[in-house]
């Protein structure tokens, strides 16, 4: 799995990606920066082929406003309205490859976003990693789990 070690995000790329992801996910800078950091770690751990493909997509997303909205600027330098229009062009593109590329970036970003403690707290969810009681039982499970577990034991 460690073959993707040479693929990652530099500090500048991570900072720029955070701006784009903030607009993509509708999150404030703090969370977007954490998600971008997660993205960089994901790239370093992913298999080489997947990491290279994703890194190319991140590059394209950052540097192709000139193609999609006619602005010769990186995406992270676009104003909010133009950036939204730009992302809309990717997400709704007729080309499957373009659409799928956008989807892949979003998917990896969501893996980090959905694991973020602040996001999970917003939904009243337990943390992304389980919390165990001293006896080893998982805390924060279904309200009917205890009764259900007993039935399950009997049933087996």
């Amino acid at each position, binding site marked *: *799995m460690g073959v993707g070690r040479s693929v990652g995000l530099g500090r500048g790329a991570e900072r720029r990606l955070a701006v784009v992801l903030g*607009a*993509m*996910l*509708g*999150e404030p800078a703090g969370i977007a920066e954490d998600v971008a950091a*997660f993205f960089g770690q*994901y790239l370093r*751990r*992913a*298999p*080489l*082929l*997947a990491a290279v493909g994703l890194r190319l997509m991140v590059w394209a997303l950052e540097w192709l406003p000139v193609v999609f909205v006619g602005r010769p600027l990186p995406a992270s330098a676009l104003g909010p309205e133009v950036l*939204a229009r730009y*992302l*809309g062009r990717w*997400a709704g593109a007729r080309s*499957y490859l373009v*659409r*799928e590329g956008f*989807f892949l970036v*979003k*998917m990896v970003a*969501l*893996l*980090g*976003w*959905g*694991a973020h403690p602040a*996001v*999970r707290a917003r*939904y*009243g*969810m*337990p943390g*992304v*990693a*389980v919390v*165990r009681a001293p006896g*080893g*039982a*998982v805390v*924060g*499970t*279904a*309200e*009917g*789990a*205890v*009764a*259900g*577990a*007993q*039935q*399950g*034991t009997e*049933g*087996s």
Partner: protein
Amino acid sequence: MSHAEGSCDFVVVGSGAGGATAAMILAEAGREVVLLEEGPAVRDEDRGLGTSEAFFRLFRAGGTQVAVGRSVIPVLQGRCVGGTTVVNGAIVWRMPEDVHARCFGAIGAAEAIPLREMERCFDRIERDHAVAVTPEGLLGRNGLLMRGAAEKLGLEGHVIRRNVLACQGSSRCLEACPSKRKQSVEQTYVPRAVARGARLYAGHEVRHIEVQGGRAVGVQGRDAEGRAFRVTARRGVVVAASAVQSPLLLQRSGLGPRGQVGAHFMAHPAAAVSGVYRDEVKLWQGGTQTYEVDHFRQEGFKLETASLPLELAGVRMAGFGKVFQEKIGDYQRTAVWGVQVRAEAEGKVRRGLGGTSIAYTPEARDMERIRRGARVLCEMHLAAGATHVYPGVHGGPEVVRSEADLRALGELPLDPRAWSLIISHVFGTCRMSRDARGGVVGHDFGVHGVKGVWVVDASIFATTPGVNPQHSIMALAMLAAERIAEERAG
């Protein structure tokens, strides 16, 4: 890390549903077994860490494995001791009579693999894996809503039977059960095989099966630290590395009929449809998959609940920024159900650039089943009281709110590129056949043209079963191993 070497009666390649079962049966029969698993052992600290960590630690290619054809479809498989049983939804289905007839009758193997023998194996597997109907308290709102919809619409359905002992309902089956209540084979048959003397080596990838005089005599490979290993097998090699990896191993070893090994890749492609309700659903409470509708099984699709974690629930939601936040903001009140299709399309597995290559495109007939299933799911969500439903199909209605909206779903595109499909059940790449012209293994599970090599995983299926395959794979492996155990030393 321990390093495999030496000799044994049987080498078993792969420790998932098929391999673990075969290893245990062979060990119980008093045979000396070496069980080799490419992936790592599952430690307590690997469990319940969220989707991303599960992908990296427990799934093949970190969860990035895909089938590529007209569209790109993720193919999720476990890669750890216990294989995919560690990361699946714990659904147990006995192979129904009609499926047995389709899978084995059609290739003349109904007598060689009688259903009554499989039933005997099912009985034992269910006893050994605490299989029971999911208790009411673990259905979760996701399951209760689907049951309500099925009853309202008069659709045949039932609470799912699962291999879980005293489930805690944390809805984390796909991350390796954090409380080890799921009776995946790393909890059951792997330790039982080891207790009977089998030697288990995790992190050992078999690269080649050695053959001398037309008979398998051992395997070679590399461990996770890059060290070469070699194990001699006096009686033979049992391959159970999955419908993706088993054909690749045979190809690398030059075994099996050329043109057949890796061909006929088949799958159950699936799509999810989410509905938003007025009251809380809380997908993270209850069993991961608890209710299914098999009303349409003869039509070629099955519907089931699938409690997607927050990390994955928003993936196919259209929109971004504020719009995305508004939609995902309903997550607490969202139920997610899936359609899984008995697809007929065939693809191919081979070694490709950068690793495994899976070429696969669902046929139009398969896509029609997916479209029909998605429409039924939308109808069911509305019947269960959803305020709005997201079909998740590019080019189709973004939201369905009423009966009138449902009509438009009949026109959803059949192009797989418009859909968000996923595959977790794969078959057919070493399919069973009477002779070498039609497939890779004979009715005795032995690879055509070589002695002492058997395949006992989902790759032997000559067609897609249309029901969750773990139980059938285990029963077939059990049956095969009982017979293989009698194989004489070469």
